[in-house]
């Protein structure tokens, strides 16, 4: 079901801040595009580049990794490592033709339901602008 129903987004959300932030968006009824699939992980620092690359291979148009704001990591440092990891993965993806805009790292706290829903919406727009991925896994 390529682009109809909107671009496919895989969201890796840290359990402590961002997953709770997504819950907050729910409890506050802040709607956002339905075509995101959220995978709960202990920490944004847990997200292995392999999972991102596999997501693209499985046909994702975009991958969102969300974690606690810098300094707020439940495990004190996880998000800093994540930040470095994806800062390097993005240009590599871009280099092989997967536009780096397709991999997003967002800081979403447990109280930022609004920020989460906006992030998904704007990511969706971005991906629509980019169109379907040239080569899908």
């Amino acid at each position: 079901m390529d682009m109809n129903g909107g671009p496919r987004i895989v969201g890796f959300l840290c359990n402590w801040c961002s997953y709770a932030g997504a819950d907050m968006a729910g409890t506050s009824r802040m709607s956002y595009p339905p075509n995101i699939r959220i995978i709960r992980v202990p920490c944004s620092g847990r997200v292995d580049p392999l999972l991102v690359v596999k997501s693209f291979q499985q046909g994702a148009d975009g991958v969102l990794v969300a974690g606690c704001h810098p300094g707020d990591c439940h495990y004190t440092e996880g998000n800093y490592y994540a930040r470095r990891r994806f800062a390097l993965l993005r240009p590599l993806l871009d280099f092989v033709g997967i536009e780096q805009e397709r991999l997003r790292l967002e800081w979403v706290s447990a109280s930022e339901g609004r920020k989460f829903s906006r992030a998904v919406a704007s990511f969706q727009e971005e991906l629509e602008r980019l169109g379907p991925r040239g080569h899908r896994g």
Partner: protein
Amino acid sequence: MVEEVRDKARELLSAGTVECVIGYERATDGITARPLFAYSPEEADRFILDRTCVHNLARYLLDRKGKPTAVVVKPCDSRTINLLVHENQIERDKVFAIGVTCPGVVEAHWGETTEGLQSRCGSCPLEVPVVYDHLITVPGERQPRTGFPELEKLEAMSPQERLEFWQQQFQRCIRCYACRQVCPGCYCPICFVDQLDPMWVGIKIAPPENQVWHLIRAFHLAGRCIECGECQRVCPVNIPLMLLNQKLTAEVEGMFDFRPGLDAETLPPFATFRKEELEAER
């Protein structure tokens, strides 16, 4: 200078300083080189040293953990030693590094060699090994630095063009894993790509699988590739693998001012972080 290698080897072997000296000898085509493992002073007579000595012999230290070994290293190869020491794979004091200065090496495949140097030599930051126990100076002008010309060519393309370029490359891949086997940074007991549980990639040899393999292979070398270029040299179907490594090398140097293997102490990019950094790159 060839004699210097032979003499040093004889000396180390007869003194029993090391059990084995790894150097180069002439290959069966009579024009290229191949690795030689000398265990006795006599064998040392077969050592050669010239611009066809392309192999990164330091990689073999992984096969000789704990055994006192001497190895001939060019500047690029020498970075291997720092990398492997830092990553706790080898003990520095078990290694005797015979460093050779390097004016660059040629493209050499069985039965054929080029006049010009390998392109990767253009981006090599070194002329003298970063680590050695004995240094041999090889005469010859080092070629001027060219940076990463092919890299820039590709970066100038549109994402779509790059996509097509790499699909063309990856679909040729036969997954012989020579690139991995020859790489000094690829020493995992069971490579993720060979793992069946979970099956990250699996055995299927097809473009999507090949792409995952090549992306992760490159990423696993981010901040670790010591630019010996062996992966590209050994590829039987001429995939320009160094482009992927060079891309990451450039990014890592840009973001973290780090170039792997120049010393054995500095923490690599993924082992550390700075609180104030990279918010822009997000």
